């Protein structure tokens, strides 16, 4: 037997659309459909394949023992489906995979936590759900409690915990799971910076002990830090497998994240947004080109194109700017200004473009996410999508670039500094 941990061969997963999410068939539907089925077949032919989508297809790769493999891709690229198959939560629809060794999955921390049970009780319950033996949990109990840092509340029901405490306890249990293969999905997206550091430390511990880790994340710096190789998924297919720095570079530069423009096809617009209909959100540089990477030293224009099928009173179009940790940096509406607010108190039906400029020398290096909102204050939210468009800010030429260091902070303003030598203060000592 070789030193393979995971071998995936032509794996695919098909979902039936509609059935998968919010459509619960009732017995009545099943019965009427059974009755009407022969009629439908006669009239429309056999049911077509359009009702299914391949969330994942033709995926083949191998992971060696002790390797840490990253998985990146947009939302809906199939990352979570892949992990769900490998952790045996769901079955593949085609293909084959073999896994050598016990798999521990962190698809979400705190699975099976019961709010009425105390921290102590939940450690045992959650441990058992994640596949630990009771003796194993007993042995690690003190370590888990210490790692979580909630010793004082260990006999308090977790429903009285703050969300931070809850998360810390949940992660502490999961982190002490010692499987040969660890499958992790976005656990690090949550929690404060301190806690995230702790989690990353724990992950690299696991990796350095020779265990195999499959790590899905949107956090590119964590991917770069923890993994040697990374696979890039897009639309359920595997685009590449490469050393992580190349894969991340490819992912960020290939415009997989929509290349500076998001257009909404009709079927993507929720019905309840009517009469508001988004058409596009784009970013333009000062030359008017639609861009995905903007320079921090130049202003960038945000353009929202939309239609109103009928007039709306008090409508406001807003954008959110978030960083890749999900922290909001700012929110702004097109009628923030008092004059605009008066002028557009009623917006008649028609085709609109709302534009604004994000000034130069505002944002720091990094990836940012733009969200869109269309609402009437306190009355109705027509449309809300926090994750519409990703873009990169490049700070070449920004103040302070003479030092090759990473500047902390979300913003990188050009502040006007004065330096004066004050003889008087100096003499006073």
């Amino acid at each position, binding site marked *: 037997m070789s030193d393979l941990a995971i071998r995936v061969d032509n794996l695919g997963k098909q979902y039936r659309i509609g059935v998968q999410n919010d459509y619960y068939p009732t017995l009545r539907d099943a019965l009427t459909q059974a009755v009407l089925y022969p009629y439908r077949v006669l009239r429309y032919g056999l049911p077509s394949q359009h009702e299914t989508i391949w969330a994942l297809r033709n995926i083949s790769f191998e992971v060696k023992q002790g390797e840490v493999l990253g998985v990146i891709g947009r939302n809906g690229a199939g990352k979570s489906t892949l992990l769900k198959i490998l952790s045996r939560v769901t079955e593949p629809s085609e293909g*084959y995979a073999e896994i050598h060794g016990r798999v521990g999955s962190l*698809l979400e921390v705190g699975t099976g936590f019961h709010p009425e049970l105390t921290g102590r009780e939940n450690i045992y319950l959650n441990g058992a759900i994640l596949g630990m033996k009771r003796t194993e949990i007993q042995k690690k109990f003190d370590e888990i409690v210490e790692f979580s840092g909630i010793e004082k509340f260990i006999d308090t029901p977790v429903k009285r915990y703050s969300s931070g405490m809850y998360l810390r306890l949940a992660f502490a249990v999961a982190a002490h799971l010692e499987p*040969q293969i660890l499958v992790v999905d976005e656990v690090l997206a949550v929690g404060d910076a301190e806690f995230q550091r702790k989690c990353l430390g724990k992950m690299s511990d696991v990796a350095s002990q020779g265990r195999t880790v499959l790590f899905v994340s949107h956090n590119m710096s964590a991917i770069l830090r923890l993994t040697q190789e990374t696979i890039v998924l897009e639309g359920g297919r595997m685009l590449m497998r490469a050393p992580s720095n190349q894969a991340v570079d490819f992912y960020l530069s290939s415009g997989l994240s929509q290349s500076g423009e998001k257009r909404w096809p009709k079927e993507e617009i929720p019905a309840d947004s009517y009469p508001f209909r988004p058409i596009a959100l784009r970013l333009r540089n000062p030359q008017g080109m639609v861009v995905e990477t903007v320079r921090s030293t130049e202003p960038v224009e945000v353009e929202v194109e939309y239609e109103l099928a009928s007039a709306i009173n008090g409508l406001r179009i807003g954008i959110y700017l978030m960083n890749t940790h999900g922290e909001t940096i700012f929110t702004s509406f097109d009628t923030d200004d008092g004059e605009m607010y008066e002028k557009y108190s009623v917006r008649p039906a028609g085709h609109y473009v709302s534009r604004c400029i994000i000034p130069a020398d505002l944002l720091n290096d990094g990836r940012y996410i733009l969200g869109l909102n269309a609402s009437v204050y306190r009355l109705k939210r027509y449309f809300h999508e926090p994750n519409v468009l990703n873009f990169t800010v490049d700070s070449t030429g920004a103040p302070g670039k003479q030092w090759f260091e990473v500047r902390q902070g979300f913003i990188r303003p050009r502040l006007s500094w004065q330096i004066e030598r004050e003889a008087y203060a100096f003499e006073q000592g």
Partner: protein
Amino acid sequence: MSNTKALPAKLNSETIVLRPSRGWIPLNLHELWVFRELIYFLTWRDIKVRYKQTVLGAAWAILQPLINMVVLTFIFGNLAKLSTDNIPRPIFTFTALLPWGLFSKALADAGRSMLANRSMITKVYFPRLIIPLSSVLGGLVDFFIQFAILLGMMLYYRITPTSAVWSLPLFVVLSLATALGFGLWLSALNVLYRDVGYILPFLTQIWMLVTPVAYSAKVVPAEYQFLYALNPMVGVVEGFRWALLGARPPDALTLAVSTVITMIALISGMVYFRRMERTFADMV
């Protein structure tokens, strides 16, 4: 954190093969044994959580059958006046309410179990059979509490158990197996069709009426006895009264039919459940 020695020596000891399953799926009961601690923990959780944030707590385990007993004794003793084989009516009813309560609660809990635990099902792998199984077992603690009350009542009425008391565990197992068999069907169907949640209360209500809880099976005319025996709970309830109160023994044919029905429900339930198992995480 421990070092590399925590890694088990035989790295390739477990090889899991994932591929689409087709047709009949083996029951894989061995895997249930491997996961026996999880069965224990989930049962323990259900018991632990059941009476949290109630004023009366575990007293509900006693109050429920007692109230039922009072109501049924009044209705069937004073209004319907059905025969009890010369056994004091309260204890006659209470003895039947014990296995019935165990069964109906286990059935209802198992039927709802897959939906109630959906967050686990979509995140972690374990044999899904564990979920209905542990919810069936969760009712046992209530049963034992109620059994203590029953013993007290027997002292009060000066009834000594018959020599057939050894058969009691068998009847308990039969009622749990029946609950599990039908519970497996209901829980798997509930994932697909939420109607099950609405059917359950009626199902248990009607089932209770066709079970000799408040009356003696004797009142059922002889020509319907065979049909009546198709309800496995008839044998269980009659068996309880026979073993504890010295009522007439359950008919051997009735017991045989009950057992066969239970086995059919249990095996078909497991097979159906296993067949549906692959879609649970996508459908629930």
